[in-house]
């Protein structure tokens, strides 16, 4: 079928698709997100296709390579609909048995089931697994049902119905709905999207001269003033991949959100600014845009309305700072990606000096939901001040790493322990950093705070774009601060003295602490300097960059003082301050002696070994390989 000419045709097209699909056809969804791909998901999917073909089941079973299911720790994930049986860590060689036993005979293969490291239980259904059970996957859930390269999959699930509804509602009512739903920007700032849209829409025109229901654009004419909508997909936080997974797994949700935004604001041109390092996201988005154009969902006269809108992809070159809205717009304009002062907001004068509405991937993906189900439904999820869900990338020292989507207001403890399964190898929780490299580190006594935009800021951290790094008792908090300062001093654009020189100096000072060269004055200077970097920098990169060092100083001051006063690293991380020693528990097994890269361990078989500390490079291999817990770090 070619172009869908109006909402009625969209409806009947969907009915046709559903009729074809309900014929008791099973779906096997293979997670082919970047994570699972790395563990061979494409090969698993191909093996499944081949095997199903071989067994003559192709008519009954649809093998669907999908986007990320979130549980990256356990890839490759194979999810069988409609039973929702989940097999994890599937390899291509497992496929014949899976098809023979499970697909044909409904027999469960125990070895592919998820076994809970906490309770030891095995789970058959995806929704029974604690990792999934406590989530509310409004956005991510569709990833497991859609082949992102097929627009029909999205339409069959009700895709683009929100757009049809929005066209019928008209811009005023759509705006009202988004405002009432209080969708807050998922890029980190948490600014209400509705208010942003409204300012952009009204920029440069008289309030009372607003065209009712987009009539001014009837017949495909260009709106009076050029306006842009932009999707920020320049996700640069180390270890964060929420936006990538949404774009890879469900690009049409983002596109649909942007079309609705463009309709409301009065824009005919959109951009997705996506990292060059996200090739799969770019590929899927490119395919999705082409298919949307073919179906008449982008271009002139969308679904028979007067709406004209198209989207271009702009690939970023890998600068973290280009995720900042003004730097991003400069980059699209072909200039150096450097932020500018926002005394005049980008909604008034943004890309090419025109009113520009920028939202992040996840925010755009929320829009179709809000329109389809309404603000009343949406505001029932999450908290009053932060409605809806938020996707986090849960990483670090936690059993179940991956992407999790939870209603706002869930506590850190629920996310880390109920969903994340707690700390691996019997370790103890020490801190969690939320909000990416410029977020704060919160200690154990903050575990019961609800996660929403405002509470996190109150507690000295931030939502950011949704990074969540869990740290255990073997993590040195001074070292953590040093790590993030190192990242940020390099990723600062270098324009402001406070950010460029300030972060360089903060890194130097924290390094002095980790190397035992600091005094109490160093800590005082860090605090003074951090205040100036925060107050004096132009963009949010600089003003938030001090969060890691400041929050660790606030919550883990003892650890700083141990480094400074006692020249000791309590977590045993900072190399200049630690010593490795073999204790009496040594059985003389000689394993550490063989593995020591510097050959500084001596001792005969069945005799206690000794480390020559003068030559020791503190690599920690002896500690890692010792089976008798006989290496002490102090």
């Amino acid at each position, binding site marked *: 079928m070619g172009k869908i000419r109006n909402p009625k045709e969209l409806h009947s097209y969907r009915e046709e698709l559903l009729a074809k699909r309900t014929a008791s056809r099973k779906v096997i969804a293979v997670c082919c997100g970047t994570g699972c791909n790395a563990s061979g998901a494409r090969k698993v999917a191909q093996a499944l296709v081949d095997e199903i073909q071989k067994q003559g089941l192709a008519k009954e079973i649809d093998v669907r390579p999908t986007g990320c299911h979130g549980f990256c720790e356990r890839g490759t994930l194979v999810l069988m609909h409609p039973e929702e049986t989940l097999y994890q860590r599937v390899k291509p060689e497992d496929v014949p048995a899976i098809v023979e036993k499970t697909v044909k005979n409904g027999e469960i293969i125990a070895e592919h089931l998820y076994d809970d490291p906490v309770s030891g239980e095995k789970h058959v259904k995806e929704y029974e697994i604690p990792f999934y059970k406590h989530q509310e996957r409004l956005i991510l859930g569709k990833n497991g049902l859609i082949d992102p390269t097929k627009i029909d999959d999205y339409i069959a699930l009700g895709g683009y119905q929100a757009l049809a509804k929005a066209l019928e509602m008209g811009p005023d009512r759509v705006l009202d709905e988004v405002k009432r739903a209080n969708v807050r920007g998922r890029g980190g700032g948490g600014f209400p999207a509705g208010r942003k849209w409204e300012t952009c829409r009204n920029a440069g025109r008289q309030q009372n001269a607003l065209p009712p229901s987009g009539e001014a654009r009837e017949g495909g004419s260009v709106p009076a003033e050029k306006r842009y909508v932009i999707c920020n997909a320049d996700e640069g936080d180390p270890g964060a991949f929420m936006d990538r997974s949404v774009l890879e797994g469900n690009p049409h949700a983002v596109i649909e959100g942007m079309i609705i935004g463009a309709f409301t604001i009065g824009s005919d041109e959109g951009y997705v600014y996506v990292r060059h390092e996200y090739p799969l996201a770019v590929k899927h988005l490119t395919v999705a845009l082409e298919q949307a154009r073919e179906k008449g969902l982008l271009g002139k006269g969308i679904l028979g309305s007067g709406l004209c809108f198209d989207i271009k992809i702009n690939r970023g070159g890998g600068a973290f700072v280009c995720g900042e809205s003004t730097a991003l717009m400069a980059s699209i304009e072909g200039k150096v990606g450097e932020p500018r002062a926002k005394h005049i907001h980008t909604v008034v004068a943004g890309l090419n000096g025109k009113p520009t509405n920028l939202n992040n991937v996840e925010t755009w993906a929320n829009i179709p939901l809000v329109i389809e189900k309404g603000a009343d439904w949406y505001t029932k999820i999450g908290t009053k001040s932060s409605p809806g869900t938020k996707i986090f990338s849960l990483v670090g020292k936690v059993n179940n790493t991956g992407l999790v989507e939870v209603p706002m207001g869930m506590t850190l403890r629920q996310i880390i322990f109920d969903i994340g399964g707690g700390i691996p190898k019997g370790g103890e929780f020490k801190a969690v950093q939320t909000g990416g490299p410029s977020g704060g580190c919160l200690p154990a006594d903050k575990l019961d705070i609800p996660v929403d935009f405002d509470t996190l800021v109150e507690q000295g951290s931030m939502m950011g774009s949704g990074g969540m790094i869990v740290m255990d008792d073997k993590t040195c908090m001074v070292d953590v601060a040093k790590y993030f300062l190192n990242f940020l001093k390099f990723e600062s654009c270098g324009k402001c003295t406070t950010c460029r020189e300030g972060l*360089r100096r903060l890194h130097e000072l924290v390094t002095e602490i980790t190397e035992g060269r600091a005094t109490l004055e160093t800590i005082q200077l860090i605090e003074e300097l951090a205040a*100036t970097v925060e107050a004096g920098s132009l963009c949010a990169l600089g003003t938030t960059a001090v969060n890691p060092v400041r929050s660790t100083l606030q919550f883990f001051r003892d650890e700083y003082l141990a480094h400074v006063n006692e020249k000791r690293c309590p977590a045993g991380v900072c190399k200049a301050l630690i010593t490795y020693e073999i204790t009496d528990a040594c059985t003389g097994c000689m394993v550490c002696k063989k593995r020591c890269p510097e050959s500084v361990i001596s001792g005969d078989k069945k005799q206690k070994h000794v480390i020559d500390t003068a030559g020791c490079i503190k690599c920690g291999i002896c500690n890692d390989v010792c089976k008798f817990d006989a290496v002490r770090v102090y």
Partner: protein
Amino acid sequence: MTVKFTINGVGVESAAGANVLDTARRYGFEIPSLCHHEAVVPYGACRLCLVEITKGGRKKLTTCCNYEVLEGISVVTDSPAIRQHRAMVLELILAEAPDAEPVRELAKRYGVAFSRFEATRAVEGEGPRDCILCGLCARVCTEVVKADALTFNGRGDKRGVGTPYGEAADPCVGCASCASVCPTNRIAVKDTRDKREIWGRELALVRCESCGAPVMTEAHRDHAVRIGPLPADYYKTCTACKRKSLSGRLAKVGS
């Protein structure tokens, strides 16, 4: 259109589109700055011109070189917080250019006797960088001279400024505007009888037909003729001789 607002409680006015820093200085308020020049678009790099601006009941600390004047705002140019942050910024800048006289003077005026940070060196083991990365050189070269010979490079703590790849840059016309605006006097310009050495280039000088003093480089003259309204003949004599000849002519008219 005229915009009215207050600075330190004093009513001031300025043309719309002007910035707060220029306006404040016009009224005699002292605000330090090292990256601002009226000839180029405000940039906001040095962060010394931090002031408190209250707009619509909300007070915030911001640089004022890139803050456009707005009706009804109130600006405060001095407070304990402003002084504290300016002093810290000056410590950072002083470490970048410890020998530059304008920087040292400014630091002294704001009570910074020395910097607690070691000197910033572009290359390990060499002397201080002596550049505060204000970008005035590159901005003048691009916006005023329109030669585009200088640019920022790198980012974060690896940021630098200069010719592309640090090589002698063909687009440089040797006008030395960069050197004249540099707040740390870091850009070397060497004139001999026939030529000027700058940014690794040697450019022939045009000498005044009348007095023999250097007028400009040949490349600069050609560039000026190409982009400007005046013919090459205009650049045959130096400014002093032009003035002399003009006043001579005017004197004749007068008598």
